[in-house]
């Protein structure tokens, strides 16, 4: 009898301990349910924000009446060591102008879209954030994540509106409303590669002969043989974007960059197949980093200078910017023609979160970033005297004793905010860079659908299903880890079953409607 009760006790203890453990684990479950609570919080948050808005509206023009506020800024990039010093410097500049302080938040590229999605979904209050057409801008607008800033621009950023190319504001509007202020920058894109100049010089490669990936191959072979510690070419999903298609929306479906307006699945084109075969070949020859489909962050390798060649979206003088950022000389090779898509107009914008408690002050800050060179350059280049020194009025150099790439503030966000034409130029850059930008803008071939923005809402179920499939295959196929002969047909087949044809038809329908409305 006694024995039995002893076992029973042991049993009870075990049950108790495990149930404790299980409730502990149960927390992970609550993450799913958390949406509800958060959303509720969001609602109250909104009410507050709205209340704050109405309260603040009256004294907005009366400058001395501005209460001190903190504005947070979010952008994708690596967190910088000296961010506190930069914030302090910006706060000094902002104190008299709009009586605001800033909190700069850099979010890892790898986590950026997730983090923003979660912040938006949870209703966390924040103010300025970077956004772009390629960064799910229209999706976020459809979800109501961003504030409609059309009237805020008129009211609090008249200078910006006056100086900006009007095409930028109209081209980035959705249904005639602006949900973000576009950055004044290049209005076209071209793609190509950047090379480690030290290595290119060491083996005296003739960079002028490179017109396509194929021309690069002998060089990669040399690097592979002679430089065992260098990755000859960085494998990644961007590499395949050299094929001449303009992507529409997030999942496959693109128009060819030859003036055509027919939407096709670019994965079924011969250009894509050839590209994937080349990538597989390169992967087998060992030109990529190890585990290219898993090892996606080139950042540390670039800092160390152990990548020879890699894909980049290029603008005039991009190589000089990267040299500064990575701390060793870089040279760029353009492989496509400059081309203007809607994506290039909305390629970098600043939005105000709908959870912002001080939207009008946030808009004033945006206005300053577009008009105040000193403020903008503090955000993108750091503190004068600490992170850069002035060589002339608009040209800067590294302060004495500071090594390139180790200054403590090189966020690489110079294209993300304000007016790029106000950015100081580094002394290694072409002093005529901004003129070159303007020429670049002028030379670009415009897409037939500039100004079109795709609304994925009618096919969101298909897109979600396709996106899941896409993420399974994209890294593997584009880095040659998967076999294009075997896996590409399977990929296409799965997407078709998930409704890709319907998505493409929807895109076509919207484009046709857009084109006929333009006539």
């Amino acid at each position, binding site marked *: 009898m006694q024995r039995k009760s002893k076992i029973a006790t042991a049993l009870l203890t075990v049950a108790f301990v495990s149930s404790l453990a299980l409730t502990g684990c149960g927390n992970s479950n609550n993450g799913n349910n958390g949406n509800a609570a958060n959303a509720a919080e969001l609602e109250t948050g909104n009410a507050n924000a709205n209340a704050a808005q109405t309260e603040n509206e009256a004294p907005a023009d009366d400058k001395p009446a501005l209460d001190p506020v903190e504005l947070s800024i979010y952008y994708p990039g690596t967190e910088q060591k000296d961010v506190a010093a930069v914030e302090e410097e910006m706060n000094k500049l902002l104190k008299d102008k709009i009586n605001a302080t800033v909190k700069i938040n850099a979010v890892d590229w790898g986590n950026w879209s997730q983090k923003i999605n979660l912040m938006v979904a949870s209703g966390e209050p924040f103010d300025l954030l970077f956004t772009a057409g390629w960064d799910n801008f229209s999706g976020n607008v459809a979800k109501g994540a961003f504030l409609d800033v059309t009237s805020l621009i008129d009211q609090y950023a008249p200078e910006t509106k006056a100086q900006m190319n009007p095409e930028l504001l109209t081209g980035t509007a959705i249904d005639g409303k602006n949900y973000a202020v576009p950055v004044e920058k290049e209005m076209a894109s071209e793609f190509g590669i950047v090379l480690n100049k030290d290595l290119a010089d060491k083996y005296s490669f003739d960079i002028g002969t490179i017109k396509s990936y194929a021309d690069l191959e002998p060089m990669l072979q040399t690097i592979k043989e002679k430089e065992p510690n260098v990755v000859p070419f960085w494998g990644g999903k961007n590499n395949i974007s050299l094929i001449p298609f303009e992507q529409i929306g997030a999942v496959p479906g693109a128009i060819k960059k030859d003036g055509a307006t027919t939407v096709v699945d670019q994965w079924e084109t011969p250009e894509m197949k050839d590209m994937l075969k080349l990538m597989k070949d390169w992967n087998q020859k060992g030109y990529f980093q190890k585990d290219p489909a898993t090892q996606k962050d080139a950042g540390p390798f670039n800092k160390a200078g152990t990548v020879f060649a890699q894909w980049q979206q290029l603008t005039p003088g991009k190589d000089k910017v990267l040299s500064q950022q990575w701390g060793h000389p870089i040279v760029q090779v353009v492989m496509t023609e400059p081309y203007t898509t809607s994506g290039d107009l909305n390629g970098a914008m600043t939005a105000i979160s*709908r959870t912002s408690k001080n939207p009008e002050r946030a808009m004033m800050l945006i206005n300053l970033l577009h008009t105040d060179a000193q403020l903008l350059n503090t955000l993108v280049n750091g503190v004068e005297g600490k992170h850069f020194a002035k060589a002339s009025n608009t040209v800067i150099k590294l302060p004495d004793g500071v090594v390139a790439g180790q200054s403590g503030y090189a966020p690489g966000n110079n294209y993300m905010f304000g007016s790029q034409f106000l950015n100081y130029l580094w002394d290694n850059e072409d002093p005529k860079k901004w003129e070159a930008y303007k020429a670049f803008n002028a030379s670009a071939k415009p897409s037939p659908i500039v100004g079109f923005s795709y609304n994925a809402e009618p096919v969101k179920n298909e897109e979600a299903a396709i996106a899941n499939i896409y993420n*399974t295959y994209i890294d*593997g196929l584009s880095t040659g880890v998967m076999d294009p002969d075997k896996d590409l047909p399977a990929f296409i087949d799965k997407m078709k079953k998930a409704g890709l044809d319907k998505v493409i038809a929807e895109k076509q329908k919207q484009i046709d409607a857009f084109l006929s409305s333009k006539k």
Partner: protein
Amino acid sequence: MNRRAGLLFNLVKYRALFLMVVLPAAVLVFNNYIPMFGGIVAFKNYNFEGGILGSPWAGLDNFKYLFQTEDALVATRNTVLYNGLFIVLNTVCAIFLAIALNELRSRKLAKFFQSSLLFPYFLSFVAVSYLAYAFLGGYGYINKMILEPLGFHDISWYTEPKYWTVILPLVNLWKNVGYGMVVYLAAIIGIDQEYYEAAVIDGASKWQQIRKITIPLIVPVIIVLVILQIGRIFNADFGLFYQVPLNTGVLYPTTNVIDTFVYRSLLVTGNVGMSAAASVYQSVVGFVLVLLTNLIVRKTSRENALF
């Protein structure tokens, strides 16, 4: 005395016990029951302006994408199969280790093994994922220190889904076996020594003692633990399946489980309604599974059923 009075009487008589229940019950209600109303988001076309109640209804629209592809089914299959395998593997290994440790003469060594086996249980899966990468990566320990010196080709562990059906159970076993072992060890220590003394007098060997005394006496513990685990068979360990394969797309066919599927759906679509739909799907199927398990247990041994 009628039933009502009886309840009141019990409430007063056992007030201390009832008081002890109040707090956990409140936590349960707030954490697990109230958020269930959020489930309606799955049937809504959620937007941030309308919120939970104000957003328009969407019917079953949000569920469509789950069944448009086989992804959700593959994830469901993976979840159940992996968890089934984990239960068997971890239980058998934990019992084996517990018995072995119990038989160990040196208490110091036993303590040492016990602690070192339990240690991985406290590691975060992020740390575990980098340990795994250090072993399995292109420049990892297995490729550079084992395969190459032996003259084999490198293996790209992170590009072949088939390897992960073995890697994941091993990682999970390494991480969690210590915990189960401690529980079984406690049960074994609770067995009265008199049984063994009597067995030794009767001339039983060590093996016979284990088979005839130890295992039968810990069977109730095993059953309770296994039932509890089966109840959670539909909840995959997110860290294991998301972090350890480093979220590699190529590996989704064998590493995608319901939890990661739901998470990725939210990230990919950013659509609250659709991710809620995936979550509701998980909950419903999980609930059915628990009921089924309990039904089976009740059929085989009534007193061990949970309800």
